[in-house]
Structure formats: structure tokens, C-alpha cells
């Protein structure tokens, strides 16, 4: 069985360091399996989050050899035998311990998003929606909230001062999904500009690159939203809207 050296970050808010563990990896193993093996045999208190082990819950985010990834979807055979593989916590969020970070920023941002408000239903009390109208939203709904996009976002990572007025890519696609919902009646543009801070995003697409669900966060979510925002400030559109009225009600 091939043996790997896993260089795992150990520590807490007060500080820490990388520690090496030599571990055997069988065929098909992923990084999370190896971390579990370290827990079971060498470091019983090694902290990491995980749940489904199948890329569906988004709990086991980490930086593996510096790349933000899900540990459960990173196969060990990606690395040459004998390699040293570093596993570190996602860097953007405050460290709790070892590979576990405090991601409460994301849960705070989630609460701020103005929720869905539906149009009145059909006479039979239910709604009609067509597959072609929801295909693009279903793409956003694939999000497993691993927060890797939030981790690599330059605004969140490097600009502490902007975090108050910036939601990040996870919530841009959340908002995009609500805005594109065929039955929604809320106008979130002011929220998107002022509280979600979409203007700070400079479309480097780092978020899309790390998304384990391959959601086109930038192309299908952020860019169309920026375009709608530009619309909003267009004086001509503003004038037209004056006469025709808003389609959607402000949040």
C-alpha cells in the first residue's frame, strides 16, 4: 500500500503549525479517508468537519496543497506516491481548531437576503412553472454551501473593512435564484447594491473555479445581476419605469 506524508495543520486561534503524519492509502481512498485514519490511529483529537462523504453536504472544505477543495472528493491517486500533501483549514474564516473554521459570517449573510414573495396562485390554488424557466435556477440550487467560493473571494479574504457590506458569491447566486424565480415579486436591486455589495466584485471568477458543483457562479449569476444593476441606474430606464411602474416591489 502506498504511504503518504500528510502535513496537517494543527492549532487554534492562538496559533499552530503543520504536523507530519505518515499514512497508508488504499485504492480509491480520498483525503478525508486518510484524515479519518489519522484520527483513528495517530491523533484522536484532530478536528475536522464532515457528514456525507459523497460531495453532497459541503462540510469538509479544506485547502489541499494550497487549493480549496472538498476532502471527500479529492482522490489520493491524484498525488504521486510518497508525496507530501498539505491539508490546511480554509484560510478566509477564523480558525476554531485544526481544520475547522468559524463560518458564521455566511449564516449571518444568509439571514439578510430578502426571501421569496410569491404571486397569487392559479385558480386551483397551485402554481404552474415550466422546466425551461427553472433550468437556470436549478443550477444555483445545486449549491452545497461548502463556502469554498467565499473562501477564495478576494473581497472577503483581503478586505476586512468591506465584509460588513458584502455578501459574497454564495449569496449572489442565492439572490440570482430568487430574482429569476418565475413566481417571485420582490425587487432586490437596492439590497444587491447596498448590502450585498455586488459592485465590489471584479469578476475574477475565482469562485467559479473552485465550485465543486461546477456552478457557473460568475457567468450565470453575477454578471447578469451586474447587468440588471446597471439597468437600474440607467436614467432612461428610470424614466420609463416612472411611467410604466415597477414590475417588482422593493424588498
Amino acid at each position, binding site marked *: 500500500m502506498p504511504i503518504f506524508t500528510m502535513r496537517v495543520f494543527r492549532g*487554534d486561534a492562538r496559533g499552530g503549525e503543520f504536523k507530519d503524519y505518515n499514512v497508508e492509502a*488504499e*485504492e*480509491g*481512498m*480520498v483525503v478525508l*479517508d486518510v484524515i479519518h485514519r489519522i*484520527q*483513528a*490511529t495517530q*491523533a*484522536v*483529537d*484532530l*478536528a*475536522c*468537519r*464532515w*457528514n*456525507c*462523504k*459523497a*460531495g*453532497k*453536504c*459541503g*462540510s469538509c472544505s479544506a485547502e489541499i496543497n494550497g487549493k480549496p477543495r472538498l476532502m471527500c*472528493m479529492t*482522490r489520493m491517486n491524484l498525488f504521486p506516491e510518497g508525496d507530501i500533501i498539505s491539508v490546511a483549514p480554509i484560510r478566509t474564516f477564523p480558525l*476554531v*481548531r*485544526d481544520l*475547522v473554521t*468559524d*463560518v458564521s459570517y455566511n*449564516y449571518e449573510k*444568509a*439571514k439578510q*437576503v430578502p*426571501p*421569496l414573495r*410569491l404571486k397569487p396562485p392559479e385558480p386551483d390554488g*397551485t*402554481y*404552474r*412553472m*415550466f*422546466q425551461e424557466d*427553472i433550468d437556470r*435556477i*436549478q443550477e444555483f*440550487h*445545486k*449549491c*452545497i*454551501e461548502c463556502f469554498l467560493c467565499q473562501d477564495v473571494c478576494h473581497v472577503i479574504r483581503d478586505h476586512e473593512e468591506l465584509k460588513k457590506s458584502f455578501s459574497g458569491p454564495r449569496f449572489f447566486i*442565492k439572490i440570482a435564484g*430568487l430574482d429569476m*424565480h418565475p413566481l417571485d415579486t420582490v425587487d432586490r436591486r437596492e439590497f444587491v447594491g447596498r448590502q450585498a455589495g455586488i459592485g465590489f466584485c471584479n469578476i475574477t471568477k475565482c469562485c467559479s473555479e473552485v465550485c465543486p458543483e461546477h456552478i457557473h457562479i460568475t457567468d450565470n449569476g453575477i454578471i447578469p445581476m451586474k447587468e440588471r444593476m446597471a439597468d437600474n441606474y440607467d436614467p432612461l430606464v428610470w424614466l420609463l419605469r416612472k411611467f410604466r411602474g415597477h414590475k417588482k416591489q422593493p424588498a
Partner: protein
Amino acid sequence: MARQAYETHEHDVIVIGAGGAGLRAAIEAAAQGVSVGLVCKSLLGKAHTVMAEGGIAAALGNVWPEDNWQVHFRDTMRGGKMLNNWRMAQLHAQEAPERVLELERWGALFDRTKDGRILQRDFGGHRYARLAHVGDRTGLEMIRTLQYHGIHQGIDVYMECKVERLLKDGDRVTGAFGYWRNTGQFVLFKAKAVVLATGGIGKAWKITSNSWEYTGDGHAMALWAGADLIDMEFVQFHPTGMVWPPSVRGILVTEGVRGDGGTLKNNTGERFMFNYIPEFFKGETADNEAEADRWYADKKNNRRTPDLLPRDEVARAINSEVKAGRGSPHGGVFLDIATRRPGDYITKRLPSMYHQFKELADVDITKEPMEVGPTCHYVMGGVRVDADTTQATVKGLFAAGECAGGMHGSNRLGGNSLSDLLVFGRRAGQYAALHAKDFGGRLTVDNAQLESIAQETLAPLTRAHGENPYAIQAELQDVMQNLVGIIRNETDMKTALKKLEVLKDRASKARVDGGRTYNPGWHTALDLVSLLAVAECSTLAALERKESRGGHTRDDHPYTDDTWGTVNVAVRLRSGQLQISREPLPQMPAELKALFERK
């Protein structure tokens, strides 16, 4: 010793567990105008519900107008081999459609029919295509919808918080005591009503689709608080889990693969399920390949493919094929959709299965068959509850979802879990809120208990010597897998009980390095206590039931026995001893009985 002051939160209703049932319960309780706390072991939105794939069973009648709650009720009862609590099965079938439509109003986007309504898919044991779904990631849609609706309802959420014990005042439950996983500090919840929505016990088996969280916490806490558990012998082994590579063994492969046209084959290429049609389902199951294949498009003139027999039947069949030497190279059988449906259909209908096999097993399911085998998936047994109110046999305690028993009888149909979570989650929230409103007297908990629970909880960290809890957990999983698995007998189960006794003793002496801050070894040592308790209950109940039925198969009692069809096995704790009793099944009224006389 002077009593410590613990961080304390007071609510009308505390819900423990934030999967589908817990979230739905919390939302309903909040809607009743009471103050609600929602406590969960993981981060919000990561509970096991997220892994549900196939769909939510509800007789909406969008694809087959012939479908209605009576047909769904009948399928559910027959799937459970008539051991279900009929009233729960009735409420479930009647209320599921409205619960699905409600999710849609809260933002869920299900796949659509051509006329813009919710599309429904075929699943095992369901007469009509009945499962509302989103590709093969329905659970994710459901939990996200409930989560994002829930955070605007004024519910206080306590994430990564583990409840260790329920607290009582006299004969009623009035709170819970636990610790924050992040800090290891204790926390006390006082509540007029407590809802358990803690999921299942599947981590007690080695090959399982269940995550670290599924350690029977709710089952065990209810037991310790004096409540009855029922049907604990019935454990569902889902027929199709991944078998290769070893590290992914047990990960679920949705029944939707078969619902969408996939078929099981042995190593000779035979569709072996035709050889395993039980008498009970002969009338409604196709006995030849041509009819089975026609059934997908024409359900009126054809009978259902045996690939979609209830899960207990399919799991046993796979087990037999492998034992007879007709298995796949890695000890499973083949599940083939590649030769039966076009590639783009497969990737559209089953995107996460495609992704999962591609990434984890280097298998392209649009080109090659999958290798699958049974995996521990679900426990039918749980806290014995009143059907309408979900109240346990102890006052102030409610239970919903997988940790409650009765709804599914001896075997659950696929798709009936997500609907169960919604229907009974809502009812639990509603009746827990009502209980809180009617609560008389002062809300107090017996403080004397707290200090001893706290000391027990800290013991693995303070002992000078002791075993690694992971090693004990692994041995427990071996015991249950090998001795209380798919096929059971008295000798094996008696051996299991002896081994469990030894493991309980070893677990009580486990030791963990490190401190209280986010220490998974410590958490494992603590969860092991409830896991061992439920493993023992399950084994005792299985030993008691001397027949084979649903998710309980014995080779020393291989047949279904009518006298066992009228009782549930109950387990309860009295004066520190587990007691087993046979409880008569509630009697179904005549108008519902009539549904089973028709063909």
C-alpha cells in the same frame, strides 16, 4: 461540591435535530406563536436529509390522475408488511401532497411536467409514479428550502451543539443538557416541550450510507427518559450502495436509477429479480422482461418490474445472488442503466449519481454498469408516539422523522421518508407548541442531575488511561454487521449481546487526548454511549421476533408468521433494566381494511 452555573436558554419548544423533520417542526412551532430553539449537532443545512436523493412520495396525481391517498396508504402498509401504525400511514398519505405544495410555495423548484406542474417519478413499491423530485438531489432542495424559510421565522438556532440528556421535572420532560462542540462548554435548555428529530442509528453497522451523526442519540435519550421504543428490530438495508472502491463502500445509489429504467443483473447477465418475486407481490409484479419494460410507459396494462419491489425484497435477493457465486467482481451485483437509456437522459435525471461514480469510482454510468450491494440505510423502529400528536409515552416529549417508530412498519418504501419528515415534523411542531401553551406550573428542571451528567461527559478527557473510542466503535460496527445484519439467527444474536456487554464496559473506560475545543475523539466517545444503547435495543427486539418480516430476516425463522403480524415489539428501561414487551397493533377501521380486499 458547589453547583456550577451553566449557560442557560429557555424556550417554549426545543427541537433537537435540524434535518427535514426538525426544521419542519421548528417552523410549525414558530408559526403557532411560541418561542422555539433548534439545536443541531452539525452546521445548519448539513443534516442527513441533504443526502436523500430520489424524491418525496405524495399522491399529487400529476402524472397518474388515478393516484390518490388511498392508493398511497395501501402501498405504504403493504410495503411495511401490514405492521405499520395505520393511523400514521393514513395521515401521511393524506397530508403529504399539501406538504409538498407548501415546500414549493417556500421556494423549492421540483422538476416539471410538460403542463408546468410537479413531475413525479417511479419508485419501489409505489403503484404510480409518485415521487416529487429534483433530479437525484431532492433532499438538498428540501433542506435548503426549509433552512432558508426557517431563518426568517424567529427561530433561535444552536449549531454544532450536542444534547447529551433530556431533563425531567417529575414525570414530564422539561429540558435538555448538552455541550457546544466548538468550545466543549456545557449548555442547559429549559423548555415546556421537547421535540426529538435526531434521525437514525445506522452508524452501528459497518457498511452504511449513514454519516457520523447517525448514532441514535434521540432513540437513546428517549429510552433513558423512560419512553418506549418500538419496532427496533426493523433495520432497512438499502439494496443499492456502492461496493467499490473500499473507501466508498456503503454510499447510497438512489433507487431512482431503477425508477428511471435501470435494472439489476448478475454476473451471467441475467435479470435475476424475476426469480425473487414473493407470493405477497405476485399479483402486481411483472413475471417477464417484456411486460416489465412496457410498464414504465403503460402502467394500466402492465405490472411493475420486480426491480422495483420493496427494498427488503431486493436487498435479500442481491444477498442471495452474491452468496450463490453470481455476484460482481467486488461482491455486489450489476446495476445497468447504460444499455437501457440514452446518455443525456441519464445525466439529466441522475446528475449526482453520474458525478459520484465518475469521481469516486472511475465509472461512467452512461457507458458501464455500476456495482452495487446492500448498505445499512434506515431504522424503521423508534420512539413510540401517538399518531396524531407525535407525543411519546412520556409527557412533554415528541418525536418525528426517523427517530419516531410506527409509520413504516417493518419496511419503509423509498420516498416515504422525506414525506414522513414533513408530515410528522409539522405535527410535532404543532402539538409541542400546544403542549407548551397548556403547560401549567413553573418550568423547572432537576438541577441535581446536571453535575453528574457533566462529570460523565468530561470523563473520557480526564481519565489517566483508557482505550481509543474509534477502535471500540469499529468493533461495534463489526459485531452488528456480522451478527445482526441482513440475515440473522438466535445463536449469532446471543453472541452479539454478550459482545455488546463487553463493548459497553470498554466504552465506559474510553480515553481521549486533547482538550474540550472541537475534539472529534471526545465526541465519538460520547456518541458511542447512545450507539451501544440502540444497538442493544435493536438486537433484543430482533431476538424477540421469531419470524421474518420486512427489514428483519432470520434463517432460523425464515417465514412470515401471522401471529407476529398483530404485535409490535416494545423496549423500555425500568430500574436500569431493559424490558421487552409485545404490544398489540392498533386496529384498522373497516373502511380502510376494505382497501386491502380489492386487487
